[in-house]
């Protein structure tokens, strides 16, 4: 059901990723909560090195899609493949092992563990102690606030700090594909810019990112390619810059009348 954005004339899939196969392929994905369909047959691709953004209104199925990619939910129909390997049907911990990390909706940090313990859990599957230590320093460079709070319990952090912790924790896994679900949620406006800068920096260091955002303008600004999700289906897709200029998108999501 995916139709190209009206403005994107130059985009065909072969342009993305320089001819290499996509890192993540979702084909005709159907997701249900009980009998209620949350996602109704979406297909999307994420290529190596991209920031792909998924925008859409509340209840459009963005977070549900993210949960399915991470193996927290089983699709009723359709397939999710990561680096050519089918991941739909795998359990969450097995998906994590393949190199997909997620900073989930609602942050889901461990409330009764310290900031340090939360970050260490992000690296649960890694054995390279020295590199883990380096990454910890890297996270603290990105989020100096977390270093100040290092011995504090996760549950006592402010919403914004928890958001940073969730992102830092996901980065600690050294993922090849990073799923970010609403990373700007609950952040002060000043911090929103910082977080988007960090996302770009992480991406520049070689991590492929799938980004779900309500803050559509910022997301389209840093994204390479974007999908607009509307009540469980892909309404529009195209290069992020094109979508940012698309009138329908601007009216619906960017607050331009």
């Amino acid at each position, binding site marked *: 059901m995916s139709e190209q954005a009206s403005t994107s004339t130059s985009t065909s899939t072969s342009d993305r990723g320089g001819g290499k196969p996509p890192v993540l392929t979702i084909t005709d994905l159907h997701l249900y909560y009980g009998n209620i369909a949350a996602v109704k047959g979406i297909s999307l691709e994420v290529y190596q090195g991209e920031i792909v953004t998924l925008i859409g209104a509340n209840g459009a199925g963005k977070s549900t899609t993210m949960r399915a990619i991470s193996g*927290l939910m089983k699709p009723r129909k359709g397939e999710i493949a990561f680096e050519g390997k089918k991941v739909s049907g795998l359990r969450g911990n097995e998906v*994590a092992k393949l190199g997909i990390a997620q900073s989930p909706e609602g942050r889901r940090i*461990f*409330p*009764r563990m310290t900031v340090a313990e939360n970050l260490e*859990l992000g690296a*649960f599957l890694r054995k390279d102690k020295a590199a883990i230590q380096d990454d910890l320093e890297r996270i603290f460079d990105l989020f100096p606030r977390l270093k100040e709070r290092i011995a504090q319990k996760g549950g006592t952090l402010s919403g914004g700090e928890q958001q940073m912790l969730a992102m830092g924790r996901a980065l600690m896994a050294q993922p090849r594909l990073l799923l970010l679900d609403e990373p700007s949620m609950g952040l002060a406006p000043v911090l929103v810019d910082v977080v988007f800068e960090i996302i770009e920096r992480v991406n520049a260091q070689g991590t492929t990112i799938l980004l779900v955002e309500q803050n559509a303008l910022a997301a389209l600004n840093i994204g390479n390619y974007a999908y607009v999700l509307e009540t469980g289906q892909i309404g529009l897709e195209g290069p992020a810059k094109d979508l940012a200029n698309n009138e329908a998108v601007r009216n619906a999501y960017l607050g331009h009348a």
Partner: protein
Amino acid sequence: MATAERTAPRFKVESLLGMAVLTAAVAWIIWSFSSGPVIFTQVLTIGLSNGALYALIALGYTMVYGIIELINFAHGDLFMLGSVIGAIFLEEWLGQTKSSPKAWLILALTMLFAMAACALINMFIEKVAYRRLRNAPKLAPLITAVGVSFILQNVGILMNGSAPHSRTSVLPSSSLELGPIEVRVKYIVVVAVTVPLLLLMTWIVQKTRVGKAMRATAQDRDASLLMGINVDRIISFTFALGGALAGAAGVLFLEVNQQTRYDAGFRLGLIAFTAAVLGGVGNLVGAVVGGVLLGVIQALNDGAPHFFGQQWTQTVMFSILIIMVIFRPGGIFGKHQQEKV
């Protein structure tokens, strides 16, 4: 604002009342002690030993509750199976009925055997009975646990018979004399076995990788999956740990009480469950403190001067539970963690 003003003074009255109850209890204990320091201390040692047993069982309740929020009513019966398995292994298979250094070694082996057996049984129960119900409404696994309790009791009847079965202890029946106070060797053994086990448990949960995964799973199962934690395996491991502790408690119970009975798990399980509630269900340290406290209260009431005597012991213990639940529903240590969602 109005409700805040109304609840504030009531809160104060409650804590005052709590303080009064506590002060009265302490005064009572001092009165009892001063009337007969020797008997008081002797009774106290029995209480500590019983309390150690309760703590071992209470930990199994509290760990399982902590990780899947299930009150595992079958846990007491698992403890009973542990004592029966221990008795059969020690007496019937290896023929040890008298106290000797060799028998003590075999007792240690029995302990390991019962721990392993109970760990396996508990893992099996989790796998066949509870795992499928993990996302079901809370009542479903609860009723299942009651069902498993009946099944285990009937396994107990099969193995042990429906009447209490007398067993012999291989521990010396002598006492150590510390001045005027006599302490039975078996009580010392119970404490000497329990304390290292509790320390080992604490170490596993606090310091090891699997312990960290246990704590993570207890706090957020989905997030743990995202971290790559094999949640199924961690829950299984938690049941194994709880089962092993119940098995150890079963063998110690066998040595102290010199009998096995299929319904031992009901009463002991209830007491241990009370201990877990006293300490705040899900709180490991709380379960140990609650267990020791109940053991001591029980022993004092049974034997120390100026208490109510054995026929009132259960009444006293459960009254304390009720008072506790009214004044501090979160247990002795309460639940202070604030969680933002």
